[in-house]
């Protein structure tokens, strides 16, 4: 029996041009699904079926995309829950957060809670054996943690997952978009007053202590901006020591 995998995809948005495209993380989720041999992939989107960017997912080699027809800015949770409850997939894959709309990254968790599935975030890869999923979870600094879960399970994918394959134009055009009528969904409310994101200055290194210390730190920081320490023709041992000390002091190496 083929394994049913539901892949939830959204419409992404390019950070430089603000143009719609396939979402980076959702495409990675689909890539993971496409690498499961013999899987029966259900590609699902809740939103506008006429959005051209959706075809980019079809271009990755999926024949059909099911679109749950809800208007823009609708809360997609109820329709997704209803659809997935009927579908009963063994795996649900999605990106960690959407690139537009709230994009708070809460949806996968709400979905998992509503479906009664466990959820594992930051999945970089997985294998399936005997009804269980062996997952590789991406930790910071390139580390990976093994996590095991029984199916069905919901996996959310971040940038550590393998890069998505190229979307081919012809496959994108030939793929089918299946429109599924769903009951009216409530509108999503922004969690507060929306303003364009403001770039926040990075905090300078915190110096607590006397005024003189803070002054000296501030002067030092200004003087050292773009200018570091220089050792000219040191003995190799001294050079090695200098590098070692620097790595230690910056916490790159643990002594």
């Amino acid at each position, binding site marked *: 029996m083929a394994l049913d995998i539901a892949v939830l995809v959204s419409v992404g948005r390019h950070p430089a041009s603000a143009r719609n495209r396939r979402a980076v993380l959702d495409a990675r989720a689909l890539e993971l699904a496409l690498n499961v041999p013999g899987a029966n992939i259900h590609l699902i989107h809740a939103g506008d079926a006429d959005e051209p960017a959706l075809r980019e997912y079809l271009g990755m080699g999926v024949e059909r995309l099911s679109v749950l027809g809800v208007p823009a800015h609708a809360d997609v949770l109820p329709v997704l829950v209803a659809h997935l409850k009927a579908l009963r997939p063994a795996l649900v894959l999605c990106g960690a957060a959407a690139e537009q709309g709230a994009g708070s990254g809460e949806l996968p968790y709400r979905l998992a809670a509503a479906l009664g599935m466990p959820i594992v975030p930051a999945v970089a890869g997985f294998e399936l054996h005997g009804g269980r999923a062996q997952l590789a979870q991406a930790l910071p600094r390139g580390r990976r943690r093994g996590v*095991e879960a029984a199916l069905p399970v919901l996996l959310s994918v971040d*940038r550590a997952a393998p890069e998505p394959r190229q979307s081919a134009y012809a496959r994108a055009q030939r793929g089918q978009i299946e429109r599924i009528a769903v009951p009216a969904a409530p509108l999503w409310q922004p969690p507060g007053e929306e303003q364009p994101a403001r770039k926040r200055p990075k905090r300078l290194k915190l110096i607590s202590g006397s005024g003189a210390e803070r002054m000296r730190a501030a002067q030092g920081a200004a003087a050292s901006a773009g200018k570091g*320490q220089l050792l000219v*023709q040191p003995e190799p041992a001294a050079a090695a020591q200098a590098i070692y000390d*620097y790595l230690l002091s910056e916490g790159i190496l643990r002594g």
Partner: protein
Amino acid sequence: MSTTPRLRNMRRPRLEGSGRVRRDPRAERLYCGEPAGETLSARGLPRRDPRAWYAAGPQANGRVRIDRSQRPGSASVAASAPLRAAEPALKTVVIAEPAFWVLAVPDLDDGRLSAHDRDVFGGARLLAADGGAVVAVCFGPAEGLDLAGADRVLQFDAAVFAGYAPEARAAAVAAVIATLDPRHVLLPDTPIGGGDLGRRLAAQLGETAAVRVQKLSAGEAIARGNGGRSDYHMAPPRLLLLAPEAADPLGGVRHEALALPVPELDTPTRLLDRGLLAIDPNSVPLAEADFICSAGNGVHDWSAFHAVAAALGATEGGSRMVCDAGLLPRHRQVGASGTLVDPRCYLAFGIAGAPQHLQGITRCERVIAVNTDLHAEMVKRADLAIVQDAQRVMPALTRLIEEKRHGA
């Protein structure tokens, strides 16, 4: 005259309490002997040799500081030691009868409070300002919660919470929430730490959290969303997931950090932590790497390069020319035409620093360069630059690391 008032003061470190003499605790900490390169002049005045000071060794932040210890590396160790050692008489704030509770759930990655965790406590203190008390909910032991700003501590030590146990932890925090009914719950918004736990809580409680909070004050939280393009200004909701530096950490006071009794819980375990997977640093994609050891045209001794990268536990990278020559595979290429990297540290051997290469490392926080050319662009870019043949430095560094590892 080359002595400064500060130096004079340091030479009389025990002059406490004098209204006129200002103390410099950090300098005192550093001081344990004759300053390097300092001699007495004919008139008996201390003289210092700036060159000797300059060569005394690298210091924190890549800046030159004067090492008065004459022990290699000691200054840097001291500089990175916890601040509280220097502040023996901190005032302890006691909140005996809190009007309400604010929970802070630190990640405690590796059992330590991270800077991000401290920011979360700082945020919690802001929200607890009018008579509330901050409860740290910890999984496993933690130090420094008093300085971070915890009035109470709930420490869950059961084995079920160890490792990756987000479901058990979420159940525990939910139980605490049910018991204490806190006004706010704050977590660091880290991908598989607080960010994971907080979203689980939000789903479980049916609440909407403020996520990626950029700035937090008593009356307002600024959350970020819409793919990073929008800020949402709101009154702080109950669940808050804070981005780094959303609030300032506490300084100059300590809180009680009284242990509270931990409830017994029946916790679900649908996820099994199988532990860290053995990862060869060289299988880590460059874009994800935390510490990159990179080789350029100036590297000829490739076994020494591979050895030093392995000893450092660093991911290997290379310049375009090295990859063109097939000395490293193409996916190891750093630069505009290769991979744009953002490791915490970039150690470059024999890389001159072509513009395309420098474009690839613009986001690196710390750069160390070893190059024979004093005028190389990479040397100018570096926080620590060593003008020396990479062939001589690489084996010396490998040896040093091996010695430290076996000696320690």
